[in-house]
């Protein structure tokens, strides 16, 4: 997944050329692109690095936010019952991103206020996570919310620390987005913000896809679309394998 250096420079040069061609009025503009629009999950998939690069039209700091496809997520709390830890209380959150990562060119607290982060949902503390049921105790919701973020971080799906955006000169920047092996499939949104004086100057949204390819995709689709045939085939394969093993070792 890691493109070679000269390709990156080539891409950056192309981006720079594109931006230079723009009229002066669009000087605040932002151009962003990815080294690949698709992350392919194949047999040997152990995660992937994607290169995001771009050009800023003017001075400012760059914030990159990557969000995975969202889904409902249920958090449960264990309680000790008769000496055994059992899942009891639960809160289901709606529209929880399955992946969340940020990257900046310097620590966020050096150039924006916490309110700014909250308004733009930048950083794991600012992601808007609403419980499905209304009217729950706010303290409890906060506890479950923290637990949700903590568990996602433990699985490597929410980044603990913002990544680095590196400037090459004044205008060109790049950053690497790392996806772990357990990343969810679907459409990912990447927002790139240009921030100056605690204000949002410009932003761009790029979409990318995580997809299973080849054998992996075939097996998964087959299992979900034709689950009965999949089950029957699974036992046929097992029966033949078992019979073969028996026959081979009988001879030996």
């Amino acid at each position, binding site marked *: 997944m890691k493109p070679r250096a000269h390709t990156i420079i080539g891409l950056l040069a192309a981006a720079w050329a594109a931006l230079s061609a723009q009229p002066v009025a669009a000087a605040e503009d932002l151009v962003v692109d990815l080294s690949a629009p698709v992350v392919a*999950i*194949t*047999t*040997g*998939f*152990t*995660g992937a690095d994607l290169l995001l690069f771009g050009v800023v039209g003017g001075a400012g700091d760059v914030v990159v936010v990557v969000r995975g496809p969202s*889904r*409902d*997520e*249920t*958090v*449960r*709390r*264990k*309680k*000790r019952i008769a*000496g*055994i*830890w*059992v*899942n009891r209380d*639960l809160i289901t959150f709606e529209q929880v991103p399955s992946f969340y990562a940020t990257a900046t060119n310097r620590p966020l607290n050096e150039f924006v206020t916490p309110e700014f982060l909250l308004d733009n949902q930048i950083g794991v503390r600012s992601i808007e996570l609403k419980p499905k049921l209304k009217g729950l105790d706010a303290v409890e919701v906060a*506890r*479950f919310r923290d*637990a*949700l973020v*903590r*568990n*996602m971080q*433990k699985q490597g799906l929410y980044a603990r620390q913002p990544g680095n955006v590196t400037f090459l000169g004044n205008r060109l920047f790049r950053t690497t987005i790392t996806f772990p*092996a*357990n990343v969810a499939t679907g459409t990912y949104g990447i927002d790139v913000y240009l921030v100056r004086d605690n204000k949002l100057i410009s932003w761009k949204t790029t979409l990318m896809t995580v997809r*299973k390819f080849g*054998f*992996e*995709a075939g*097996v*998964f689709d087959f*299992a*979900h679309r034709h*689950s*009965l045939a*999949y*089950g*029957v*085939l*699974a*036992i046929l*394969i*097992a*029966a033949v*394998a*078992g*019979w073969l*093993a*028996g*026959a081979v*070792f*009988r001879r030996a």
Partner: protein
Amino acid sequence: MQIYLPIAELSVNVFLLLGMGGSVGFLSGLFGVGGGFLMTPLLIFIGIPPAVAVATEANQIVASSVSGVLAHWRRGNVDFKMGIVLLAGGVVGSSFGVWLFTLLRGIGQVDLVIKLSYVAFLSVIGGLMFSESIRATLRRRKQTPTKRHHHYWIHVLPLKMRFRKSRLYISALLPLGVGFIVGVLSAIMGVGGGFVMVPAMIYLLGMPTVVVVGTSLFQIIFVTANVTVLQAVSNQTVDVVLAMLLLAAGVIGAQIGARFGSRMQGEHLRGLLAILVLTVCAKLTYDLVVTPEDLYSLIDTGDHR
């Protein structure tokens, strides 16, 4: 070398899986057990979602039982009539088990039920085997004759059937009941259930030992096949790639284990197996009782997709 498992949706080291398959296969060949009760907890320990571990293990047991039953069939050690009655109970039991499993998964309690079932069954079976093997060792020294147990109450039950191969004339309700219970266990625990069925066949039904293993394997093939199909349909949790990897190493391990096993004394083998069973049981109990690192967890209810 990592491999991405398409249904479990995570990437695992191939050699770890082959090693697990081989080791459990070796033990199953050595002790003459299916190994599902060891493999399923091991898969859960390495991070495979319990729902996938249970369903996939059922698929693997189909294969190991087929290769096992062939040898017994050639020697004529399968009581097909008994097998079919056990199977009738097993199909109903395993269907009920998968339904229960899906229900429990929906309310987020399936992990707990899987673990509690393991603790309950492994402690009872392990304890019984351990004390039996000690008694057998002592008996060998004293050279006292053994008595066969007779359960007179079972002769009162209706629907009597004749099982020629097992030389039995007993109520069909007994094998049906045994089959049902083993079927439920198979669906919930991802095991063949031989470790429950074999003692039940010997001590409860009174079957001759020589036909017990072959007949139980015969029944296990179809019950685990039923579990595989039902799990595939209702939960989509059967990972064929995982099953095939475990299987490939498992059959080789089982052959090596069987050769080692033939050189050891029966009661010593049972004693060792009992210790193994009790160890797995102790580990699972410990995990249930010790305060978890994080009281909060994300629950896979299977309805994301």
